[in-house]
C-alpha cells in the first residue's frame, strides 16, 4: 500500500470534506474559491512531484490504482480544468446560496476523475465515474430556482443512471466471464477466451452503450446538449472539459487494455460510431442560436474525433487522443468560461448577443476567437496540432495495412471544414457586425478572476499551438505507459 500513489486524490478529498466545514464560518465565495484553489494547487504539486521525481509508476495496490505517466498526465489535465473552473466560479456564483457545497462538489467530482485516471480495476473505475456523476448531478441542479437547471439535472441523472446501469451490467458480465477485475488481467483472460463468446458480445454491447451515453456518442448523445445548456455555465465547462473526457479515459482503458484482444471485432463499430458522432455533432451545431448549445454539439463532434484514437488503437493514435483531450480541455473549457463571464455582465447565451463584442471587450472577443479557431483546427493553435496528430495516426494506420482507417481521417477532415462554418459565424458576430444605434455599446467591466481563468486558457491554447513539442512528448510518454 503505497499511499503516495493516491496523494492527489487524498489531498483533494480532504479539501472537499473540509470546505463545507469552513463554509460555516467563511461565506464569501472568493475566499472559498481561494481555499479550493489551494487544494487543487497542492494536488497538482503532488502530481508534479511525481513527474519531477521520475520514479516511474507507483502502484497503490497491485492492479487497483496506479500513478504512472498516463494517469498523472490526465490528473494534471483534470486538475487544470478544475483550477480554471474554480477560478472562474469565484465570481460567477458569488450571489448564490450554498456556495461551500458548490466547491465541495466540484472538488469531489474532480476526485472522481482522478480516480478514473489512475484506476487499474473495473470496479475502481466504476466508482470513480459514479463519484463524478453524482457530484455533477447536484452541481447541474445548483441553481435551485432555475427551472432549466432542474430540468437539465433531471435529464442528467436519468441518463447518468441509465448509462451506469449498462456499464455495470457489462462489467458484471465481464467479471462473470473472466473472474478477474483488473484491466490487464481481464485483457489477458479475454485474449484466452475460447468459448462463451456470445456473452462477451453482450458485454461488449453493454459497455459500448454505457460509455456511449457517458461520452455522448451518437446515437446516445441527445441528453448532452440539453444538460450543457441548462447547467450553470462554469459547470458546463467542467462537464465538457472534464467529466466527458473522464468517460473517454475510461473507454481507453476498457477498450485498449481490457478488450484489446478482440479489437478486430469492435474497431469498425467504434469507427462508424466515431464518424457518426462527429458528423451529427457538427451538423446539429450548424444552425444553433444558443452558443452554449452550439458548443455542446461541438463537444459531441470533438468526442467523435477523439474516438478515432480508440478505433485506430495504436500507441500513436492514443498519443493523439490524449493530446486532443488535453487541448480540448483548454479550448472548450475556455470557451464555456468566456460564456460564463459574459453572463455575469448580462450577455446571454444567444449568439446574436455577441454582436459587436470586439468593440465592447477586445480581450474576450479575441480569446473567444482563439478558442473557436482552435476548435476548428486552424493553425497555429493547439486544436490544430492535436487534430493533426490524431488524424495522422489514422493515416499512418492506413499506410500501415488498415486501409479503411483513411476514412476516419477523411471524415475528420470534412467535419473540420464543416465545423468552421459555425465557429466562424460567432467570430463574424463579434468582429464583423457593427453595433447599430441604440444597441448597448459601452465597454464591459469584467471580473478579474474570470479573466485570469480565460487568460490561462488562451495562453495554453496558443502556447501548445506554437510549441507543442513538450506536450506531445508528455502524451507520448503517457501513451507508452498505457500500453
Amino acid at each position, binding site marked *: 500500500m503505497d499511499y503516495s500513489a493516491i496523494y492527489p486524490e487524498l489531498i483533494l478529498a480532504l479539501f472537499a470534506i473540509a470546505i463545507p466545514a469552513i463554509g460555516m464560518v467563511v461565506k464569501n465565495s472568493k475566499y472559498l474559491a481561494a481555499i479550493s484553489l489551494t487544494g487543487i494547487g497542492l494536488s497538482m504539486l503532488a502530481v508534479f512531484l511525481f513527474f519531477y521525481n521520475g520514479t516511474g509508476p507507483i502502484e497503490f495496490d497491485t492492479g487497483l490504482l496506479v500513478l504512472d505517466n498516463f494517469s498523472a498526465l490526465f490528473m494534471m489535465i483534470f486538475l487544470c480544468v478544475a483550477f480554471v473552473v474554480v477560478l472562474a466560479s469565484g465570481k460567477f456564483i458569488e450571489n448564490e446560496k450554498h456556495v461551500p457545497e458548490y466547491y465541495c462538489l466540484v472538488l469531489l467530482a474532480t476526485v472522481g476523475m482522478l480516480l478514473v485516471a489512475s484506476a487499474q480495476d473495473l470496479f475502481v473505475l466504476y466508482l470513480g465515474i459514479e463519484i463524478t456523476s453524482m457530484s455533477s448531478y447536484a452541481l447541474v441542479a445548483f441553481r435551485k430556482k432555475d427551472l432549466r437547471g432542474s430540468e437539465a439535472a433531471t435529464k442528467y441523472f436519468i441518463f447518468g443512471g441509465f448509462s451506469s446501469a449498462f456499464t455495470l451490467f457489462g462489467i458484471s458480465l465481464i467479471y462473470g466471464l473472466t473472474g478477474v477485475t483488473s484491466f490487464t488481467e481481464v485483457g489477458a483472460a479475454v485474449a484466452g477466451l475460447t468459448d462463451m463468446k456470445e456473452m462477451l458480445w453482450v458485454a461488449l454491447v453493454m459497455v459500448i452503450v454505457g460509455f456511449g451515453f457517458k461520452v455522448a456518442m451518437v446515437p*446516445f448523445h441527445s441528453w448532452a446538449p440539453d444538460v450543457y445548456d441548462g447547467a450553470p455555465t462554469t459547470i458546463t465547462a467542467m462537464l465538457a472539459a472534464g467529466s466527458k473526457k473522464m468517460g473517454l479515459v475510461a473507454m481507453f482503458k476498457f477498450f485498449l487494455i481490457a478488450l484489446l484482444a478482440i479489437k478486430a471485432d469492435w474497431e469498425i463499430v467504434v469507427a462508424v460510431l466515431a464518424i457518426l458522432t462527429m458528423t451529427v455533432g457538427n451538423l446539429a451545431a450548424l444552425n444553433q442560436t444558443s452558443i452554449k448549445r452550439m458548443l455542446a454539439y461541438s463537444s459531441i463532434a470533438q468526442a467523435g474525433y477523439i474516438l478515432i484514437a480508440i478505433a485506430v488503437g495504436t500507441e500513436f493514435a492514443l498519443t493523439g487522443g490524449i493530446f486532443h483531450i488535453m487541448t480540448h480541455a483548454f479550448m472548450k473549457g475556455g470557451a464555456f468560461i468566456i460564456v460564463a463571464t459574459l453572463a455575469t455582465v448580462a450577455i446571454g447565451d444567444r449568439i446574436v448577443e455577441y454582436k459587436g463584442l470586439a468593440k465592447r471587450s477586445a480581450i474576450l472577443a479575441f480569446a473567444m476567437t482563439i478558442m473557436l479557431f482552435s476548435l476548428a483546427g486552424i493553425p497555429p493553435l493547439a486544436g490544430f496540432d492535436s487534430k493533426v496528430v490524431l488524424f495522422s495516426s489514422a493515416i499512418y494506420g492506413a499506410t500501415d495495412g488498415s486501409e479503411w482507417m483513411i476514412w476516419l481521417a477523411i471524415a475528420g477532415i470534412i467535419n473540420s471544414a464543416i465545423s468552421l462554418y459555425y465557429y466562424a459565424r460567432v467570430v463574424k458576430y463579434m468582429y464583423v457586425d457593427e453595433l447599430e444605434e441604440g444597441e448597448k455599446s459601452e465597454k464591459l467591466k469584467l471580473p478579474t478572476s474570470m479573466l485570469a481563468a480565460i487568460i490561462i486558457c488562451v495562453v495554453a491554447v496558443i502556447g501548445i499551438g506554437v510549441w507543442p513539442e513538450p506536450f506531445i512528448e508528455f502524451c507520448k510518454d503517457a501513451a507508452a505507459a498505457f500500453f
Partner: protein
Amino acid sequence: MSILEYAWLIPVLPLLAFVIVGFLGGKMKDNGAIVAVIGVGGAMVLALWTAFEVLTTGVVYKPESMEWVVLSSDYSMEMGVYIDSVAAMMLIVVSFIAFLVVVYSTAYMHDQGKRQRRYFTEICLFVGVMLGLVLANNFLQMFIFWELVGLCSYLLIGFWFERPAAARAAKKAFLVTRVGDVMLMIGLFLLFTEFHSLNYELIWGNLTTADQTTLAFAGFFLFGGAIGKSAQFPLHDWLPDAMEGPTTVSALIHAATMVNAGVYLTARAFPIIATSADVSLFVAAIGGITAFIAATMALCAPKIKGVLAYSTVSQLGYMILALGTGAFLWNQGHHEAGSLAFGAGLFHLMNHAFFKGQLFLGAGSVIHYVGTEELSKMGGLGKYMKVTSITMLISCISIAGIPFFSGFWSKDEILAMTFEATDVNLWFLLLWIMGVATAFMTAFYMFRMWFMAFKGEPGEGTKHVIEHGGHHHEAPIAMLLPLVILAALAFGSWLSLFIGDGFYSVINVEGEFHALSIIERLEEVFSSPLTWVSIAMAGGGIALAYYTFNKRRISAENVVSKGFPKAMRQLLLDRYKFPVAYDKIGYVGVYGFSLLLDKFDRYVIDGIVNGISKFLIKAGGVVRKSQTGFVQNYTTLLLLGVSLIIVLLYVVGALR
C-alpha cells in the same frame, strides 16, 4: 566604323521622342511637335543613310544578336538587327513617309490643342516600333513590334475616343487583327519548336532539313497574321472603319506603313511559304480575291477616305497576290520568275506607299478645307485647291496604272507574273482576270473620286466654305510640301528600276538578278500584249469615270436606280454584309455563348457548391429538430443504437 553600327538607333530615336513627349510634352509650348519632328527626322536621316549603305554595298548587315530571355537550356529568345535590301527599302519608305506625315501633322493637328501631346506621343511610339519591326532579325522580335504597331493603330484610330464610332472602330481594328495575330502566334510556335529559334537566317538556312508538313502549316499560319494586319479577305473589314482616326494616321498607318507590315511578314516568310505549293496558291488566291472585292466596294463608296481605304485594301491584295504567285513559281522551280514576282510585290509596296500616302494627305487637305468627308458634298474644289488637286491627280494616274507613272510598272509586273503562272496552274488565270478587272475598277473609282471632289459644280460643302469665307487659301506650307514631295515620288519612284542595277536586282530572293537597261525594259514591257491589256483597262476606267462623273454623259443615279445594279450597290455599301457577319459572330456567337456559360457557371457549378452547403445546413436543421427535448425520445434512441451496433458487429463478422 560604319553607320550601320548605329542602325539600332533608328527605332530608338523616335522612342526617345515618345518618352520625352509623353512625359514632358504637356509642358512644351507646341505640345511636343518639335521633339517629334526631330526624333522622327533623326530616325529618317539615319535610316536613309543606313539603307543607302546597305543597298549600295549589297552587304547584309547582321550583327551578333543578343540574348533577350533564356527560357531553358535549349530555348532562348533573342534580339538583333538584320538589314538586307528588303529591310532597307522598308526603312526608306517608313522613315521617309513618317517624317513627312509628322511634318504635315504639325499643321494638320494644330487645332487639337492639348491633345496634340497625345497625338505626337503615339505617333512617335508608332514610328519607333514600326522601324523596330523592320529591323528585326527574327520572327519573335518582329511579332513583338508587330503587336506594338497594332497597339498604336488602336490608340490612334481611337484618337477621338469620345466619338462612339471611333471607339468602335478602334476596338474592331484591334480585335480583327488580333485574330490574325493568333494565327501568326501559332505559326511562331510551330517554327519555334521546329527550329528552337526564330532567327530568319537560321530558319531559311534549315528549311530543307525541317519537317515539311510543319513548314507548310507554319507558312499558312504566318500568313494568317498578314491577313489580319494587311486587311486581307476575310479579315479586311476593319480597315475601312479605321478611317475614323485622324487623316494623317490613315495616311501613315493605314496606307503607307503598318498595313504593309503584313506584306513584309509575307516577304520574310516567303521561303517558308514557298515550300508548299498549296499554301502559295492560297496566299495568291487571298490576294487576288481581296484585290477584287475591295475594288468593287470602292466603286460606290460615299466618302473620300472610304474610297482610299478600299483602294488600300485592294492594292495590298495585289502585293499579296504577287508574293503568293512568286512563292508558287518558286515552289514549281521557276526561281527567276518567282523572284521577280517577289520583287514586283515589294516594288508595288513602295510605290503604293508613296501614292497612297500622298492621296491620304491630299484627302486630309481637302477635308481640312471643306470640313466634310462626303464626296457628294464636294465638287469644284479644283479651283480653290490647285496644289492639292494636281498632286492628287498625279497619284491617281499613278495608281490607275498609266505608263510612265510608278504604279504602272509594279502593277503591270504583278499581272504579268500572275499570267506567267497560268502555265503551271490554271487557277492563276482566274486570278489574273480578277487582277485585270481590278485594274479597270481602280482606274474608275480613283478618277470617280477625283472628279467628284475637284471638278464639276461646287457641292454643298464647297459652297458653304466659299460663302462663309472660312479659309480661301489652301493649307499651310507644312501640309503642302509633303503633298508635293510625295506626288513627285508617286510619279518618279519607278526610276528606281534604273538606278544602279535596278530595283529587281536588289530586291529579290536569290540575291543575283540580271539587270535590264531602260531600253531593254521598255522594250520588254511594251512588246507584251499583256501590257496593253492593262493599259486599256486603265484607260477604259478613266474614260468611264470621266464620262460619268465629269461630263455626266452617263447618269450614275440612273444606272443604280433599280434592279440588279441597285441591289448590287446596296450590297457594296453594306460591304458584302461583312460588318454584319462580324457582329453576328462577335455579339451573337461569342457573346451569346458567354452569357449561356455565365448561367451555367452560376446555376450549375456554383449551384453545386451552394447546393452542398444548403444541403448541409438543411440536414443540420433536421438533426437539430430531432432533438425534441423529450427524455423518452432520447432513450428510445437506445434501441436504434443497439441495433446499429449489432448490425455492425454482424457486418464485421464477429457475430457470424
